[in-house]
């Protein structure tokens, strides 16, 4: 990214336009969406469609109202919608999904002047809004691989707008998945001291938001983006690396209390957040050292919130906080082009 952004004239023509990058991100998200539908069935599919459609409609409305013409073609609203849908529980009522989609674009993006001006990742703004508005609904899950997932919807999916979600107990019973608990792995670790095996995570056999269960797939899709240079590989590496490092130190210091680093990396939304959200170009720094600091900040904050905070998952707030800090990070890590001869700041990261 730093190779193509923020360079003074002369500009050499490159086929890599914003639209092109964004479209490739959408492509990279597709396998994860398909995996989610395979895991959770019809409800997951309609949720992804609804959230994305709301994002697109909101984007259309605001771009028209502010006289910018059609901004749907840059694919950014589509990315926001897909990412947002992947962070919500698959049984999330559609009307709440629509609220999340609207909040993401309206509060997270249009308010600040559209693509490129938003200080926060819009998908996370939407997610934070519904987390604050519907805290209990966003923490209720249905089991993955329920046997009737392709023949019937989860009842709460079609909850009437503005109403309390329909009860899912009967549906979950029919799912015939043994030993289902409504809590996510992070929740079970925090409150019951129960840890899952690495195999559970890699196969997606845990309860969580759609985008939190497919670490390998996310890595593959992220790898594609990084290889084609559509994404800065340093950010996810810094995020995951710093989270794992801190988790490893704490695990060694107090072995019985804190889980292994691999659990921290694979559970929750850390992978999705590191690969697809922290790397959002508009909300991350561009200076080389700044990128490492920004990534490390997210990783450390995630672990700190998970271990010591009141919430079970910290990725969302970690990224939002780092988003807020990124202009400051950028300012402090500006490479000195001229002026007093100071030592090269771009060199020694960490």
């Amino acid at each position, binding site marked *: 990214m730093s190779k193509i952004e923020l360079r003074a004239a002369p500009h050499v023509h490159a086929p890599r336009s914003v639209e092109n990058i964004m479209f490739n991100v959408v492509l990279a998200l597709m396998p994860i969406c398909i995996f989610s539908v395979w895991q959770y069935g019809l409800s997951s599919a309609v949720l992804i469609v609804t959230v994305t459609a709301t994002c697109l409609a909101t984007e259309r409305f605001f771009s028209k109202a502010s006289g910018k013409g059609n901004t749907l073609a840059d694919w950014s609203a589509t990315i926001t919608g897909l990412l947002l849908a992947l962070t919500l529980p698959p049984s999330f009522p559609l009307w*709440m999904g629509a609220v999340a989609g609207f909040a993401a674009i309206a*509060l997270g993006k249009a308010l600040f002047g559209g693509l490129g001006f938003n200080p926060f990742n819009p998908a996370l703004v939407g997610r934070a*809004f519904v987390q*604050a508005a519907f805290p209990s609904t966003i923490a209720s899950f249905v089991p993955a691989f329920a046997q009737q997932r392709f023949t019937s919807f989860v009842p709460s999916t079609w909850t009437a707008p*503005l109403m*309390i979600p329909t009860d899912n107990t009967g549906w979950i019973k029919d799912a015939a998945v043994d030993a289902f608990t409504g809590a996510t792995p992070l929740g079970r670790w925090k409150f019951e001291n129960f840890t899952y095996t690495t195999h559970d995570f890699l196969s997606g056999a845990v309860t969580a938001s759609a985008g939190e269960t497919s670490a390998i797939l996310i890595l593959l899709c992220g790898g594609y983006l990084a290889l084609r240079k559509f994404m800065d590989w340093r950010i996810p590496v810094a995020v995951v690396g710093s989270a794992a490092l801190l988790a490893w130190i704490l695990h060694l210091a107090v072995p019985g209390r804190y889980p292994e680093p691999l659990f921290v990396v694979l559970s929750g939304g850390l992978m999705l957040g590191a690969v697809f959200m922290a790397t959002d170009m508009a909300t991350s720094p561009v200076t080389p050292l700044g990128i490492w600091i920004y990534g490390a900040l997210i990783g450390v904050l995630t672990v700190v919130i998970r271990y010591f905070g009141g919430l079970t998952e910290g990725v969302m707030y970690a990224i939002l906080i780092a988003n807020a800090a990124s202009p400051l990070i950028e300012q402090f890590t500006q490479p000195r082009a001229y002026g007093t001869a100071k030592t090269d700041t771009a060199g020694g990261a960490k």
Partner: protein
Amino acid sequence: MSTPEKKAPSNMDELLDGLWKQNPIFVMVLGMCPTLAVTVSAINSISMGLATTFVLAASCLLVSLLRNAIPKEVRIASFIVIIATFVTVVDYAIQAISLDLYEALGAYIKLIVANCILLGRAEAHAAKTPPIPATLNAFGMGIGFTIGLLAIGGVREILGAGKLFGISLFGPHFQPWVVMVLPPGGFFVLACWLIVFAWFKQNKANKSKPQQGCHTTPTTEGSRA
């Protein structure tokens, strides 16, 4: 916040000034502390608005009556004492009317004394204006403030509790939006109203280009990044 002083505005202008053109919340963005804190329901908003209106009108009347007796050097002290007096009056009055309301408004009744609309109006307007227009202007400002609070409080109560003035709108199965009764909800709703206002004014300014321009105060939100 200096008012653009026109040549001898009519009493009607004085009254209407605060309702729209100089609306304390949506145009001047003043008094944000109670605006964000107490607007969790429509009834709280109205009570707070009316309490502020009373303090505003009464203190502006007194300031205006005494404006020639107050030396410039001690004017701020005088204004604050006058404002604090009427805030105390309102504080007792609300306790006498309803303790529930008093609990709901909490410290924010006493904090009216620090609301910048009050000192702002006393200093910028009442201290230079005869009693009748000064009181009318203050009254208009107060009503404008009340309308602003009500606009925010109404939205927050509808989404946060499914009610308006305590009357249930959507039946027993309504899912409350918890965020709306928490402090962030106040910011969200205020921001949305500011956008609506900025938008409305921009459209109006675009339609009648030449003269309207100088009255358009840029709000904090809007396209200027």
